[in-house]
């Protein structure tokens, strides 16, 4: 029932006051060094006492805080499945590679999802696929066996990534909330477009693209694959006929401009949730806004660390929700 979210939405409305606006992001860009950026973020309440000097740890801590809040507010976290599948399937991919290679790398798993890294590795090592959600089982088995037989990491990746996109799409279409449906549609379509662009640049075959792309309503996989075979202009021409016409313009500019356009599009989609008081929509919007904010701060911190100019960083930062 939509009214079940009244308390949660009111809390989120208060929390939205601490989201970064475009002007705060501008202030962060104006900080001279990486260290002064970290100090600025600390003053804004980001991270905790252990993460003051480590940007990545600070960003992880902020993501943990956000999910902690959501767990407090939403008794049934399955409404966020659409958002968490990306991380969950990432854990699956990392676990398969770790088990097959026998090398346990650095921190490669996401802990703030329903199956953490340690459990995922155990499941894959024991081939206990039944312990995984139903929509992961077949992909896990296929990806594991493919990697064992072929040692082709890319093939393993596309099997899991496609399963992730299909899971996101199914969960999105099943969702009662419009914003989740729009998010799922947009995520799958944008992922397909990115696959087409990368495949075009690396001369991949039609079969490879079809194997990697997931079906969705707003993009025709068949037409997109054929457009990719004909070159970047064909991809842009095809996109001009779809809901992603503005994206074609960004794509002509550069890949990073296209990714920026995709993120800004999601923020534009969730804007109406600022005026909704009775559904899970504002909570989903808050999670997406927070993820967007963390991603933008990461871009700025990386830019400062790499010595990029302020203008160069400014070109890459995303629009903010508030």
């Amino acid at each position, binding site marked *: 029932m939509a009214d079940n979210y*009244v*308390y949660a*939405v009111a809390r*989120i*409305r*208060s929390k939205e*006051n601490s989201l970064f606006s475009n002007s705060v992001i501008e202030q962060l860009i104006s900080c001279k060094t990486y260290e002064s950026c970290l100090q600025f973020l600390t003053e804004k309440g980001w991270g905790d006492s252990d993460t003051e000097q480590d940007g990545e740890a600070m960003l992880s801590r902020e993501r943990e805080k956000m999910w902690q809040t959501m767990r407090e507010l939403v008794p049934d976290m399955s409404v966020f499945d659409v958002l968490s599948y990306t991380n969950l399937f990432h854990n699956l991919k990392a676990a398969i590679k770790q088990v097959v290679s026998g090398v346990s790398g650095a921190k490669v798993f996401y802990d703030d999802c329903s199956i953490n890294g340690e459990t995922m590795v155990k499941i894959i090592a024991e081939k206990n696929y039944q312990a995984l959600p139903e929509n992961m089982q077949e992909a896990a088995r296929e990806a594991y066996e493919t990697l064992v037989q072929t040692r082709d990491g890319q093939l393993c990746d596309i099997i899991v990534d496609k399963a992730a996109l299909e899971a996101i799409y199914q969960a999105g279409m099943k969702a009662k909330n419009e914003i989740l449906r729009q998010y799922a549609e947009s995520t799958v379509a944008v992922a397909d477009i990115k696959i087409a662009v990368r495949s075009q640049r690396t001369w991949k075959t039609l079969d490879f693209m079809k194997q990697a792309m997931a079906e969705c309503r707003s993009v025709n996989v068949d037409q997109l694959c054929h457009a990719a075979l004909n070159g970047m202009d064909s991809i842009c021409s095809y996109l001009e006929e779809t809901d992603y016409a503005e994206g074609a313009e960004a794509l002509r500019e550069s890949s990073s401009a296209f990714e920026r356009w995709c993120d800004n599009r999601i923020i534009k989609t969730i804007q109406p949730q600022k005026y909704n*008081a009775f559904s899970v929509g504002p909570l989903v919007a808050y999670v997406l806004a927070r993820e967007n904010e963390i991603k933008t701060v990461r871009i700025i911190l990386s830019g400062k660390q790499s010595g990029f100019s302020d203008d160069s960083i400014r070109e890459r930062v995303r629009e903010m929700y508030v």
Partner: protein
Amino acid sequence: MSDLGIVFALLGAATAVLLAGAGSAIGVGIAGQAAAGVVTEDPGKFAKVLILQLLPGTQGIYGLLVGFIVLSNIGLLGGGVADISLQTGLLIFAACLPIGLVGLISAIFQGRTAVASIGIVAKKPDQFAKSMLFPAMVETYAILALLISILSVTSIKI
């Protein structure tokens, strides 16, 4: 048959109190959830959100007022119950319907509007006065219904 007169008169009083009271309980309850959400994050806004939470509570008071007038008119409060015909009983029942029904519906919607206004206070506390006007608008219709119910109940000759 004359016994049915007092039954309908009491049913009228009960309808006014019950429906308007239930509406207020729902309205205040839903607004209270939103108020609690804001106070969890910012206890400094307690007074402002409390006022907004209370706005849908007035319909219950209006229902109670009409109920009291009915009980007083039919002599139940004074101890001597008047002899009320079926026609008079039905008239009293009909007179209580406006505040009962309008009270129920307006209190629920006022509660929902109060929730939205609490959202304004959460983000822009300086706009509190404006935010109060939105749920207050809904009150107009409860007051109109109260007016008709009181005029009707007090006009019925017993």
